C-alpha cells in the first residue's frame, strides 16, 4: 500500500516553499505530485505599471541569483522593440557581468548539492570560493548581488583599468580551485555512490519535456543560446558548450563545474578584446508600438522575455518564461523509480529557482485538482 511523504512547504531540503507529495512503497517512489505557487508575487502586473527605466530594476529583482541575466533579457527585448543598438564596449561589459554571475550561481548550486548529500565540508569550501566571485562583482559594479551592470541603451558603469589586474588574479585562483573540485567530485567514492546513476533523464525525455540549460545538456541535448542565438558580444568570443551523455546527477555536476571554467575563459577573452569608447547611447522615453522577444542563457537555462509596447513609456505587457519553470516537468521521470533518499539531490540537480518560477498561476489540470482538494480540506476543518 502506498504511503505519502510530504516534502514542503517547509523542509530543510528546500530553500523556498514548494509542495511535493511523493507516494512511496517502502523506500521506492511510485508517484510524484508537484504543487507550486507559494511565491507568487505579481511581477508581470507590476512591470506593466512602471516605465521601462524603472522596470529594468524590477526585472532584476525577480531572482536574487540570476539577476543580471533577467535585466539583460529585459534589455535585449526592449532594445529590440525600440530598435536601438548599444555601443561595442557596453556589449563586452554585459558579457563580463553575465559570466561573473554564472560563476557565482554554479558555485552556489554546487554547495547546496553537496549539502543535500551530507558532504558539509565541500559545501563550506564551495561557498568560500564563491566569495571570490562576489568580491569581484562588488569591485566592478558596486554590489555583490544586484550588480545592475546593464542599462537600457548600454552599460551602467565602466570597468576601470586599475581594477583589471585584481580581476585577473582572482580568476586564476578560482580556476585552480574549480579544477581541484572537479577532480574531487569525479573521484570521491561516496560522491560517486550517491550521484552516479541517480535521477537519470534520458535524452528522449529531455527533448519531449522541453528541458533547458545544464539539465538538458547533461542528457546530451546540445543547445546553448550563447552560441545558437548570440547576444551581447558572444558572437565574437570562442568557447565550448559542455555536453555530457549520461543524464544522471553526476553528469549535471560535471557540466556545471566545467561551465565555470568556460566562463573564466570567456571573461579573460572579453577583457582582452574590449574596445574603447562610449558605454551608452540615448534611449527614447516613449517607445513606438512593437513587440519582441529577448532570450538569454541564464545559469539555469533559456530565459525568455516577451515585451509589447504601445507608444507610451510603460510596456503594455511583459511575459517572462524562466528556465526553472521549463525544467520542473522533467523532475517526474527523474524521481519515479528512485528512493526517498534521492529526493533532495534529484530535485536540487535541476537547480530550481522557486522565485523565478512562481510569477504566474498554474492554470491547468494541476490547479483543478488543487481546487477540489482545498474544498475538501475546508470541509474537514469545519467539522
Amino acid at each position, binding site marked *: 500500500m502506498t*504511503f505519502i511523504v510530504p516534502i514542503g512547504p517547509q*523542509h530543510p531540503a528546500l530553500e523556498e516553499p514548494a509542495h511535493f507529495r511523493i507516494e512511496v512503497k517502502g523506500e521506492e517512489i511510485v508517484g510524484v505530485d508537484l504543487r507550486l505557487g507559494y511565491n507568487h508575487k505579481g511581477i508581470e502586473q507590476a512591470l506593466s505599471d512602471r516605465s521601462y527605466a524603472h522596470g529594468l530594476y524590477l526585472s532584476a529583482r525577480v531572482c536574487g541569483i540570476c539577476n543580471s541575466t533577467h535585466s539583460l533579457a529585459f534589455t535585449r527585448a526592449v532594445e529590440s522593440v525600440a530598435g536601438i543598438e548599444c555601443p561595442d564596449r557596453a556589449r563586452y561589459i554585459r558579457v563580463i557581468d553575465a559570466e561573473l554571475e554564472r560563476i557565482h550561481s554554479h558555485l552556489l548550486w554546487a554547495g547546496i548539492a553537496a549539502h543535500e*548529500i551530507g*558532504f558539509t*565540508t565541500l559545501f*563550506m569550501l564551495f561557498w568560500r570560493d564563491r566569495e571570490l566571485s562576489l568580491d569581484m562583482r562588488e569591485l566592478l559594479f558596486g554590489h555583490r548581488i544586484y550588480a545592475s551592470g546593464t542599462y537600457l541603451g548600454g552599460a551602467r558603469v565602466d570597468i576601470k583599468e586599475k581594477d583589471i589586474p585584481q580581476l585577473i588574479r582572482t580568476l586564476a585562483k578560482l580556476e585552480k580551485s574549480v579544477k581541484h573540485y572537479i577532480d574531487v567530485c569525479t573521484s*570521491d567514492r*561516496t560522491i560517486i555512490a550517491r550521484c552516479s546513476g541517480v535521477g537519470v533523464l534520458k535524452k528522449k525525455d529531455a527533448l519531449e519535456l522541453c528541458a533547458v540549460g545544464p539539465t538538458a545538456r547533461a542528457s546530451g541535448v546540445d543547445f546553448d543560446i550563447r552560441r545558437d542565438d548570440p547576444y551581447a558580444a558572444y558572437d565574437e568570443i570562442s568557447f565550448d558548450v559542455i555536453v555530457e551523455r549520461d543524464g544522471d546527477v553526476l553528469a549535471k555536476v560535471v557540466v556545471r563545474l566545467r561551465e565555470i571554467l568556460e566562463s573564466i575563459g570567456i571573461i579573460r577573452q572579453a577583457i582582452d578584446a574590449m574596445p574603447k569608447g562610449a558605454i551608452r547611447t540615448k534611449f527614447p522615453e516613449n517607445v513606438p508600438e512593437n513587440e519582441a522577444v529577448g532570450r538569454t542563457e541564464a545559469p539555469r537555462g533559456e530565459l525568455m522575455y516577451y515585451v509589447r509596447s504601445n507608444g507610451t513609456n510603460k510596456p503594455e505587457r511583459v511575459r517572462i518564461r524562466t528556465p526553472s519553470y521549463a525544467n520542473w516537468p522533467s523532475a517526474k521521470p527523474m524521481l519515479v523509480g528512485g528512493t*526517498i533518499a534521492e529526493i533532495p539531490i534529484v530535485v536540487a540537480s535541476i537547480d530550481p529557482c522557486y522565485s523565478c518560477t512562481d510569477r504566474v498561476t498554474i492554470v491547468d489540470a494541476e490547479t483543478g485538482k488543487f481546487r477540489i482538494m482545498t474544498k475538501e480540506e475546508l470541509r474537514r476543518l469545519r467539522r
Partner: protein
Amino acid sequence: MIEALGYVLAFFVFPGILFASAVGLLFAGIDRKLTGHMQHRIGPPIWQEFLDVGKLFGKEDITPAAANSFVFNCAPLLCFGAVTAVMLLLPINSSQPVLTSVADLIVIIYLLNIPAVCMMLAGYASGCPFGTTGSSRYVVQLFGYELAFITAALSVAAKVGWSLSLSSIVSYQAQNGWMVSQVALIPAAIAILIAAQGKLLRVPFDIPEAESEIVHGSLTEYSGPKLAILRIAYNIELFVVAAVVVNLFFGGPVPHTIGGVYIPGVVSFLIKCFGIVVLSTVIRNIAARLRIDQALKFFWTFPTLLAAISLFLVVVT
C-alpha cells in the same frame, strides 16, 4: 550499606552521570570546533554543547497529540539510563570496573543496543512520517554494523582465551602490549572503527537521522527537556563507544611514566579516547552520506570480512 552508598556515588558522580556527561559534552564540543577548522572556518566554542543542552532544558515540554505518549516520554530516559549504566561496567580508573561481578562483554553490547531500540520505538511512536522513515532506516542499519562490531570484539576475546571479561582483556594488554600491535588483530581494529562510525550515527552512516532528507529522523518530534536528555545520551554514547574500543584494542587505563612525569590511568585513558574521537571526526568530514542499501552492502562486505579474517587468524594461530 557503605557499599551501596559507594555504588550510588559511582552512578551519579564518577564514573557515572556527572563525569560521563562532562567528558561526553566536552568531546562533542571539541569535535564541532575541529570540524569548523577543517572546513576553514571558526567553529563554535568548546563549551557549545553545554550551552545547547542548558538552553533546551529551559524550553517547554511538548508531546504531540498523535504520538503514543508512554513510549514517546520513556524513550529518552531509557536511552540515558542504559548508556550511563555502561559507564559502570567499563575499566576507566584501573583494570577493575565499578560493578565487577556482571562486567561482561555481552552485557555491554546489549546495553549499548538499548538506545538504538529505544530510538526506533520512539520514531515509530512519534506519529509523523519522518519518524517512521528514520526508524525503518535505523533497523536496517542496526543489522549492518552490529555484525562487524560483535565479530571484532569476539576476535579480541578469542585472543585472551575466550574470556569475555573486560578486566582480563585489559590485564592481558598491560602485560603483552596493546592488542592493536598484534598483526592478526589489525583488521579487527579497522573493522571496529568503521562499525563504531555506524553505531554513533555519524557521516557517512548518519542515514537514520539525515538532516536534509527526513528532517531529523526519529528525533523529529522531540523538543525541550526530552531532546536535551537525548543529546546528552548521544554524547555520552560517543565517549562510551570510544572507551570500549580503547579497552579492547588500545590498552585501556594503564598508567605510564614518560620522562619522569607520572600519568595516572584515567588521564591516559581519556587521551586515548580523545584520539579515537578525533579519528572519527576526520572520517566524518571527508565523506558524503551513503544510501541505506549501499550502507548495508558496505557493512556486510568490508568490515565484516576484515573482522572475520581477524577471528580466523586468532583462532588458527
